[in-house]
């Protein structure tokens, strides 16, 4: 695969990862690795792992060595996540494909816990109106300002703020409940 030869630096713009480009180049590559490792997986499982892979790359973007190959890193992450998902073995750092790469494995457990939260939040977001959800994503994914979002959605800044406030409030409630229950444990 041609993309495998690309260095991580090709997907970085300053400190930010160009996620669209990464997905475009490595979506099929990740799919292949998953299929090769687990033929029994459903499409839904594959999709879930694929998302986890790109999310893990994005979360570790600060730790990436821009001079190393992106494919090796993605390959290692994918295989590790497959193992983790089925809890067949404990995660180890002995993964040949990216043994030379910098991967913070200690974060994998945390990432999974956060994923549980993410599922709950994601479900809550799905309950929102499309416009509210899109505003939330523009603000928290794209990093756009309230003013820019107002222009995109053709609404006043105060209305954008108000919508964001209401969404935050709903999501914070979930996080708080989860936080309280995990504290109890």
């Amino acid at each position, binding site marked *: 695969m041609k993309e495998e030869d690309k260095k991580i630096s090709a997907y970085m713009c300053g400190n930010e990862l160009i*996620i669209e480009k990464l997905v475009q180049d490595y*979506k099929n590559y990740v*799919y292949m690795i998953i299929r090769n490792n687990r033929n029994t997986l459903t499409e839904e499982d594959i999709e879930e792992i694929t*998302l986890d892979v790109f999310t893990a790359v*994005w979360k570790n973007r600060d730790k990436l060595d821009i001079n190393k190959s992106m494919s090796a890193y993605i390959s290692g992450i994918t295989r590790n996540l497959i193992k983790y998902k089925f809890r067949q073995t404990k995660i180890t750092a002995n993964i040949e494909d990216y043994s030379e790469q910098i991967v913070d494995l200690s974060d994998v457990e945390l990432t999974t816990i956060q994923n549980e939260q*993410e599922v709950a939040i994601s479900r809550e977001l799905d309950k929102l109106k499309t416009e509210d959800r899109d505003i939330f994503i523009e603000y*928290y994914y794209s990093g756009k300002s309230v003013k820019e979002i107002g222009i995109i959605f053709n609404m006043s800044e105060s209305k954008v703020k108000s919508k964001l406030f209401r969404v935050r409030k709903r*999501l914070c409630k979930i996080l708080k409940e989860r936080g309280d229950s995990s504290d109890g444990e």
Partner: protein
Amino acid sequence: MENEKELLDKLKKRIAISNFEAEYEQEQKHRRVFPKDILEEGRKCIMNKRIILNVASALAVVLVLFGVSASIYAKMQWEIGFKEYQEREYATELVTVKNAEETGYTENLEMDYVVQDGIGVKLNSLLMTDKYIEITADFKFPEDMEINTETFCFGFAVYDEEKNLYAVTPRMNAYSGPKGKFDTYTPYMYKEIGIDYPGYISFLVSSSGQHAISAENHSIKSKIELTAMDVFPESKKLYVRINDLGFTMVDVSCDPNVENYTEDFDVSDAEWIFKIDIP
């Protein structure tokens, strides 16, 4: 597998959620540094202080108002008492000493009884020296009144035109009550005379007293005696007030644990004011 756009949308949503979680975590850290409870406690503390201050202020205002009201009320009561005092029954009589060229001279005042409440009072004689004043006063009671020379007594006051207060002496029982006549009478008299009441008794005499010296035909002759602390001023006018006539028996016990026994009977609330011109 789903198309790239769907995957990307889901990924964006995940990243947005992750960023939101990071923001939330950051807020939680901030709250851990500045816990809400502490902030709330601080706010409550400030609120409590404000409440206490407000209550204290309100209380202070109430107390001040109460104090002012009580003061005004007391002042009003005093004025009412003084007005009643001024409206009391009293008679004045001018007596002129004919000859007092020498000190120690006893002058028969030769005056008629001044009658109030059926009781006639007159000053019979005056003896004045630099250090001693003796006034004899005659009291004539109605025929149907039962009198007792031994227990008869009265209050008196002696002062001059310069507002020098020689003496103010209550009837014997005046001290016995919780608010004896002497306590109220004295300040009112001070005001009437035009003397600032100092709140304590300050006279020119070292001793003063009165006692009956004889009785006949429903009449009692009493003597008022004043002994100067230093010397009496050379007064040109002497005022003698006689009031609060009554019969009082006081059984004074030497034992401090035994309460004194008093028996008291008012004869008249009228007052006799004699003005004596001294040449």
